[in-house]
């Protein structure tokens, strides 16, 4: 016997008897003999729970938990204890997509609350139930813009995170849509280049804030230009920063999208996290993903249901605008609980504390005279500097002290050579920051 299989010998015999057969193999009579797998799998033998724990203890030793001064989409924000306690409840964790609303009100209600929070943070009218991550949400936003505008070209700001750019390019390339880049000038997207490139084929324009370098770009004037061209304005924004920064709605965005990892989610080696996508109601029928709506049951009680499903793949099949068939539901619950705990004030404080730490580090690093700021622009919790210290020297020195920070941006492409990115969240202490500065100060 094995702990996950309740079948006793007697059970199997009795079931076989009911079926009038003598072995389970007979049920596979439709499978051609030539494709039956008769040998043993070349995978390890089973493990007891304590063996497994030991195995993971060994594996854990090969990982190093570091003090993170790294960002670029994945941030080390504080995670309230309440979240794990709630998200690990089996009612949330093990249930399926809420297609039976009578026994899924838990999931449906938190999706509605999640949508409400994304709605208010972005300022737009409607959020979907979430997407896989910030990069795919942005790629889907591009598809959506093409479907709405009935055009086939996307203009991408050169200050977008290259990961996002890469995913957008893959999606657009295979769907046989086009793209072009809007040039960067001193670390921000160049509005003059946007003017030159806005033509009758442009369905959407994608920008990011804070941008890849951490700079908070000001998109004054963008929305007017873009709307005049009958294109859609897509703003990719780190959701946490929208607690203090101008909302995508205030920027004049038609679609807002991005990553939600910054809502206290673990770095998790990159996933799972979740992406958000919000828009105005006019475009809701071209919006990808699930949407939860408010209604009532036949006794008049408040109820939530998945709605506008006629947009989705299980009904529209080849005519659907997106093939997405899930949401990152449990991570949306994570985000909802985080935002419930933090509220407006907590989110402001998180941003302020991160701002303070980042600016302290920034000033200290400039004072070492080993770093310069090539852009001299406004930032929040993340900034990019230039240095002549060889990157291997920095990495080795920091790793020796258990620090990961100062990501060399050239891992994203040669054009970023010599640039190095730091991110500071409210979790970083003065001791940690001073320690980082001391190490870097001693290098050459």
């Amino acid at each position, binding site marked *: 016997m094995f702990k996950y299989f309740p079948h006793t010998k007697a059970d199997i015999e009795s079931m076989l008897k009911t079926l009038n057969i003598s072995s389970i193999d007979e049920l596979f009579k439709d499978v051609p003999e030539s494709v039956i797998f008769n040998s043993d799998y070349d995978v390890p033998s089973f493990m007891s729970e304590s063996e497994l724990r030991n195995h993971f203890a060994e594996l854990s030793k090969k990982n190093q938990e570091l003090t993170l001064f790294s960002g670029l989409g994945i941030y080390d924000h504080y995670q309230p204890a309440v979240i794990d306690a709630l998200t690990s409840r089996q009612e949330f964790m093990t249930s399926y997509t809420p297609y039976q609303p009578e026994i899924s009100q838990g999931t449906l209600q938190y999706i509605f609350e999640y949508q409400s929070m994304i709605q208010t943070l972005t300022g737009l009218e409607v959020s979907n139930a979430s997407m896989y991550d910030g990069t795919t949400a942005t790629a889907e936003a591009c598809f959506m813009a093409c479907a709405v505008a009935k055009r086939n070209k996307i203009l991408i700001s050169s200050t977008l995170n290259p990961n996002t750019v890469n995913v957008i390019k893959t999606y657009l390339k295979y769907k046989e849509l086009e793209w072009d880049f809007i040039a960067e000038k001193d670390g921000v997207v160049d509005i003059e280049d946007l003017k030159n490139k806005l033509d009758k084929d442009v369905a959407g324009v994608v920008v990011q804030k804070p941008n890849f370098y951490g700079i908070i770009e000001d998109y004054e004037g963008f929305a007017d230009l873009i709307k005049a061209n009958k294109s859609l304005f897509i703003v990719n924004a780190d959701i946490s920063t929208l607690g203090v920064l101008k909302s995508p709605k205030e920027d004049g965005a038609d679609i807002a999208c991005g990553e939600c990892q910054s809502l206290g989610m673990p770095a998790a080696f990159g996933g799972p996290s979740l992406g958000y996508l919000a828009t105005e109601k006019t475009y809701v029928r071209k919006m990808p993903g699930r949407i939860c709506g408010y209604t009532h049951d036949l006794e008049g009680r408040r109820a939530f249901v998945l709605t506008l499903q006629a947009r989705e793949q299980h009904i529209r099949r080849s005519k659907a605008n997106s093939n997405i068939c*899930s949401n990152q539901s449990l991570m949306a619950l994570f985000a909802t609980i985080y935002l419930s705990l933090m509220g407006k004030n907590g989110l402001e404080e998180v941003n302020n504390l991160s701002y303070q730490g980042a600016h302290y580090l920034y000033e200290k690093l400039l004072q070492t005279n080993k770093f310069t700021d090539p852009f001299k622009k406004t930032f929040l919790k993340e900034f990019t500097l230039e240095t002549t210290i060889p990157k291997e020297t920095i990495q080795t020195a920091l790793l020796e002290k258990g620090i990961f920070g100062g990501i060399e941006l050239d891992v994203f492409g040669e054009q970023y050579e010599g640039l190095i990115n730091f991110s500071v969240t409210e979790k970083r202490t003065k001791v940690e920051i001073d320690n980082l500065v001391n190490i870097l100060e001693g290098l050459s």
Partner: protein
Amino acid sequence: MINYNKMIFELSNSERIGYSLPREKFIEFHINQLSDDLLRKQELLLPEVSELDVLRHFTNISIKNFGVENGFYPLGSCTMKYNPKINEEMAANKAFRNLHPLQPTSTTQGALEVYYNLQTYLSELSGLHEFSLSPYAGAHGELVGLMVIKAYHEDRGDFRRKKIIIPDSAHGTNPASTVVCGMNVVEIESNELGRVDLEKLKAVLNDEIAGMMLTNPNTLGIFENDICEITKLIHEAGGLMYYDGANLNALLGKVRPGDMGFDVMHINLHKTFSTPHGGGGPGSGPVGVTETLAKYLPNPRIKKLDDYYFVENSGTALGQISSYFGNYLVALRAYTYIRTLGKENLKLVGPYATLNANYISKALGTAYELPIKGYCMHEVVFNGLINKDNDVRTLDIAKRLLDFGMHAPTVYFPLLFPQAIMIEPTETESKETIDDFINVMHKIAIEAKEDPDKLKRAPTKTPIRRTDEVFAAKMMIFSYKDYLEYINNRG
């Protein structure tokens, strides 16, 4: 507290907080130093609540949900097996959970080892050469797998092949993924046994066919017994075979997709490999390919050289399809599951699941219409009751099951049968649980005859009853803000 009906926003009191943050350390700086036109003016409608408020709220709404640990969950095509607790314990390990994806690989060897070994285990279990764990979900895996197919043809300089053959019994994601990948769907009708019709297949083959997507066993729970002939036909026509891994659980221990001639596939780790569905995600949809196609797999890839694991970005890859490595912690749970079962127990998954489904098929066949006779695999599809008097529909049966403390099966899918009801009991269900389900289903069949109104009214014992879906679609109340406006307008 099953009658709890507050929204978190309705608990709000502007003086309460639910967090504790470090005190300010660098007061010479303040976010208000940012230029005013960069700052938000728009109102922010977030709740202001205490920590216990949050705990009670989410606990009280959670109990309106039905999870795998509540009871039998025979949702067809979804493989709602038990999600082991040890998987969760391993995924909570801080040494994995707190890793930044850009950390130097020298500091993430344990995490990469798990990832790499899972890739090789999936290869072994499916008979395909190499896997990428980057796709976030089954549908995402389909899209990436189709990108591999398209990249392969284009790499050969063949730009004509843009048609994907899909049987009419397929999941809706198959045609949707095809179109999102910039290709066209050629749908073929199933034969009277619910299988691929070889003659109809032959009739659509030409030099524009890029490949064929197939679920096997198909969505009727039936094994495509002509599979070798099908793959041969597609290959001879120059196309590639895509295996939709949605129903892989049936085959685990018995048949490997690679051995049937499939070139590309995805696996739903949240089905076959026991990771929790999470109310709709996060899942994971690794894509596996043959040796010829391995060079097209997306970036980044995890490789191994002399016992050192590293991240590789290849110029031949189809591109990047996720921020980093996919849903890593979901993959880690699947790894734990495979190590827990080991080669000995993995072999029993498909056979036990298939035994359970056939037992149900036999036991319910006297009251429910079985449109396709013979053995099924891991799931069985009925077309409503045999006795269709009293206008009792599949929806009514599904809703009545909820009153008996069981989750409903999948209903109205596949589309081939108007009253389809699709039942998948996985290998983690005992004979007692299944017997209970069978008894309830027979009870419902009797009620349909004697008291059909009871079914039409069902459910009555659930936290809420049937909902007004037309109201939801017409009113479009998608947020608390919409709700407040609705309430105000109503007066």
